[in-house]
């Protein structure tokens, strides 16, 4: 089987699977509770995972790293806490046309609730973000700028640092959706100067159900928790309660302990390879794959046309075979790709298409797989382009 759907989720290395089994077999206990050694071991493993993530994204403090269920939950928390507390009627939230639904709908809901305006940064013809338009759409009314770091369709990596600078000049906070970047490149939240950064474990070799919300300490410390319950409290009275300091204030209830440990193992795996090496390898695959895909007669590739500016996500359509038919045919040949709107309906409308096929690559994919894929595409085209009268 050839797995080309890494933007949806990645496969898991043995070390990640082993870390889950090892935790459940040897260290299973609740964290931050038990006055016994087993619980201490679980707590240590859980908190070590936080340290690993802190190093991975170059956060200044470990308290800035919160475990969540994934990117979607991280962004929803922001909309329902920071957003609800800081966005008033007439304020503006600025996102872009290339956002995933999870970085659109929470802001839509918030904007509808408080009477704020949701605005979209335009894209240029090559699918990259129009920074002039971003500049024009930012004003003193702008309170939140939330943009994806890497597109899950266009293969575009956005200049978050520049956007953050613009946002801060207008007194807005900068949120980056890192779901498609954290697995594929070195992340430095301090250098990018973002206020929040969200990503998921399962797209970067880790388990499902675990993700991260990074928040700059000064901003995060003023934010209210999204959920209340065990672990996050300090003192509970009949009518009121006080809360734990960061990061535990945001982690109500028994957290996904195994998931956090598994994510820690995934971070170890990637760090061992080195993120610059991960990025360079994927870039070499794109430089190999993109020209070959572009040579297929009748193909349209979305996003930048040169591999130098294209990440490992390649969305395309054939003029003669619909995306779903192509994906079903590839599946028959053991090649797994995604076909559809990729949870980016506003982007699809922007491009005036209903669906695309998407190939998304990762560290375990090879040139041989790409060769086979190109070969099979040719056969599928022949299959569908016969005259059926």
């Amino acid at each position, binding site marked *: 089987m050839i797995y080309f759907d890494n933007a949806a989720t990645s496969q898991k290395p043995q070390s990640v699977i082993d870390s889950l089994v090892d935790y459940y077999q040897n260290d299973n206990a609740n964290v931050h509770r038990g006055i016994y050694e087993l619980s201490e071991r679980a707590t240590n493993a859980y908190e070590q995972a936080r340290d690993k993530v802190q190093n991975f994204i170059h956060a200044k403090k470990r308290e800035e790293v919160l475990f969540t269920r994934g990117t979607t939950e991280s962004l929803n928390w922001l909309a329902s806490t920071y957003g609800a507390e800081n966005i008033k009627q007439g304020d503006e939230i600025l996102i872009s046309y290339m956002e995933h639904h999870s970085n659109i709908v929470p802001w839509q809901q918030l904007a509808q609730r408080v009477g704020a305006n949701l605005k979209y940064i335009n894209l240029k013809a090559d699918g990259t973000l129009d920074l002039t338009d971003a500049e024009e759409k930012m004003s003193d009314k702008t309170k939140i700028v939330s943009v994806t770091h890497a597109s899950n369709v266009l293969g575009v990596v956005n200049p978050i640092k520049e956007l953050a600078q613009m946002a801060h000049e207008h007194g807005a906070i900068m949120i980056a959706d890192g779901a498609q970047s954290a697995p594929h490149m070195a992340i430095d939240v301090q250098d990018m100067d973002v206020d929040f950064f969200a990503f998921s474990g399962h797209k970067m070799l880790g388990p499902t159900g675990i993700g991260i919300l990074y928040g700059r300490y000064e901003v995060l410390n003023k934010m209210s928790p999204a959920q209340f319950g065990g672990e996050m409290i300090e003192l509970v009275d009949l009518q009121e309660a006080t809360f734990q300091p960061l990061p535990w204030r945001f982690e109500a209830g028994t957290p996904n302990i195994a998931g956090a440990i598994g994510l820690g193992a995934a971070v170890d795996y990637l760090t061992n390879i080195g993120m610059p090496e991960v990025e360079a390898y994927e870039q070499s695959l794109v430089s190999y794959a993109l020209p070959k895909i572009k040579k297929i007669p009748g193909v349209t590739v979305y996003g930048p046309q040169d591999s130098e500016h294209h990440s490992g996500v390649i969305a395309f359509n054939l003029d003669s075979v*619909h*995306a*779903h*038919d192509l994906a*079903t*045919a590839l599946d*028959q*040949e053991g090649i797994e790709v995604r*076909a*559809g*709107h990729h949870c980016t*309906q506003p982007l*699809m409308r922007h491009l005036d*298409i*209903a*669906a695309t096929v998407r190939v998304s690559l990762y560290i375990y994919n090879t040139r041989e797989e790409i060769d086979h894929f190109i070969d099979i595409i040719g*056969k*599928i085209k022949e*299959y*569908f382009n*016969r*005259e*059926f*009268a």
Partner: protein
Amino acid sequence: MSLHNLDNLYRQTIMAYAQHPHNYKPMLETESYHIRKYNPNCGDIIDLAFNMNDDKVTNIHFYGDGCAISKASASMMTDLVSGKNRSQITQLVEQFSKMARGEDGDFKSLGEAQILSGVTKFPTRVKCATLAWHALDELLAIEK
């Protein structure tokens, strides 16, 4: 080469309809019944419209961006229900749903559309086949 497995889904008849769909034309906006349906899984869009004359469906047509399966299914469906009345069509929609769920039964009344039963072997594609039928079902539920 296992592409021949595809023959179970992309039968000759289905592909012929997909390449040359029947009753495939843009909406006039004057039809008395019109619906736009989305397949949220894949983003496919279908517009379906018809008029009712004397409790009979006339001038039924569809339009939209869809895969071979959805176009073939909509083609066969529009051919099949044209000129039939509400209760006849409701029965056909039920029959088609039953077939698409993989249930046993006699589906002769569906005519050519019986060939779409192959879709049950491709669970991720069942919705492509049923989209037009769901659209029709919703339109029939509207009393005018």
